[in-house]
């Protein structure tokens, strides 16, 4: 249902759209990082680095829009939860932007890391891109089940990260001359893993926004019970 006051809806929509846009840009960055890595494309890496300013501006814009919304409309109930969640989510999105900028920086320094393990980054990127897609949808559709999937996918990402680290360690043990290269790749993977953690934060805020329940520090089992699903993992 719409607000009696049309400008209230416009302000909420604007906030919503900016967040949606930030999700898209972060996802684009992650995907382009993979491309830049594969193609040793420094120019593309620079584009990603430059895009950080856009994300920063959007973050500041969301904060300002939220402040204006509070001043003008004093949001309550579901609107209050939305505005609160938006200001939390935007911080995570901005951090994700920073992490993609870090990856792009590491790619610019790459020498022969792509020959080392081209698929490593690809698998991880695919999972993170998928997760970000779900996180955006969960937010835009206020969908707690999608939010749950974002959180669940983080397990797979963590497992993949651990396996990849192990593989890199083996490489380093076998070929000491590759240590610095492997370290850089390991660092890239770490940035991706942290992006996934931030995506989880956004999903938790979606659950708060929809259900009014704070789930940031509860166990997986409690979360699954709350969302009406059994925890069939672990």
């Amino acid at each position, binding site marked *: 249902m719409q*607000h009696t006051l049309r400008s209230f809806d416009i302000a909420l929509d604007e906030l919503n759209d900016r967040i949606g846009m930030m999700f898209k840009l972060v996802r684009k960055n992650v995907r382009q990082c993979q491309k830049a890595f594969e193609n040793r494309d420094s120019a593309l890496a620079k584009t990603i680095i430059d895009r950080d300013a856009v994300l920063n501006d959007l973050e500041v814009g969301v904060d300002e829009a939220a402040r204006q919304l509070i001043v003008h409309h004093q949001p309550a109930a579901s609107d209050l939860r939305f505005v609160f969640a938006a200001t939390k989510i935007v911080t995570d999105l901005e951090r994700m932007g920073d992490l993609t900028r870090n990856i792009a920086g590491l790619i610019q320094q790459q020498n022969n890391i792509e020959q080392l393990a081209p698929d490593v980054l690809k698998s991880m990127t695919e999972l993170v891109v998928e997760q970000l897609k779900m996180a955006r949808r969960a937010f835009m559709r206020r969908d707690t089940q999608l939010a749950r999937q974002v959180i669940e996918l983080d397990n797979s990402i963590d497992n993949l990260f651990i396996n990849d680290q192990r593989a890199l360690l083996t490489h380093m043990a076998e070929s000491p001359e590759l240590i610095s290269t492997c370290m850089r790749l390991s660092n890239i993977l770490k940035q991706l893993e942290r992006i996934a953690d931030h995506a989880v934060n956004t999903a938790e805020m979606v659950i708060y926004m929809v259900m009014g329940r704070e789930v940031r520090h509860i166990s997986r089992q409690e979360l699954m019970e709350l969302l009406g699903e059994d925890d069939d993992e672990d």
Partner: protein
Amino acid sequence: MDNKATVKIRIRDLKLWYGESEALHGITLDISANSVTAFIGPSGCGKSTLLRCLNRMNDRIASCRVQGDVLINDQDIYAADVDVVQLRTHVGMVFQKPNPFPKSIYENIAYAPRIHGLASNADEMDVLVEESLKKASLWDEVKDKLDQPGTALSGGQQQRLCIARTIAVRPDIILMDEPCSALDPIATAKIEALIEELKQEYTIVIVTHSMQQAARVSQQTAFFYLGDLIEYGETGQIFTMPKEQRTDDYITGRFG
């Protein structure tokens, strides 16, 4: 609701008719002692009507008929032997527009206690007047002009004078029907600060159209719509996570 809180007012299946028209459709609600309970809802929802049931102000309307129970301190206030004048000393009321008597500030306070014999001599009355004005946070502003007319005070001061007048007959419940709607923000803030203090000693029920005010001053909020109690709960919960969609729609401004 906090089960540990003492229930001051029990309302059970309360129905009210104005002539043929049913204005309250069976309200059941417990109001805790020493707390502020806010009644919110759009015009015509029954919130003021319900408030007026709590000191039988509706008795004054000829076509009004009430069914159901209102128990205050476990006493049925609609029982045949209830003295309505006595009831209204226990359950005081403050109205939308300040309505001081056209008398001095002192007399505004002393008038009812004198009728009820609450002071046996002039000294006792002086003490009672001073105490009441102090409790209403008005003493410092008027102590040097007690003989001046109450109507000469500012709107906010007049409203606090009316609160002092209510307090003077030693009620334990104070009903407030939009007590700040005729006041500016500063006078409103003073009344709200006063409500915060008064709740230590009194049970307060406030009807307000300002949801921000309800959120600021009350511990419990009841949302009414078309004569029904839609939702009743802890104020923080009502304003962040109401259980009913209609409450959310109203609080967020999505009504009508």
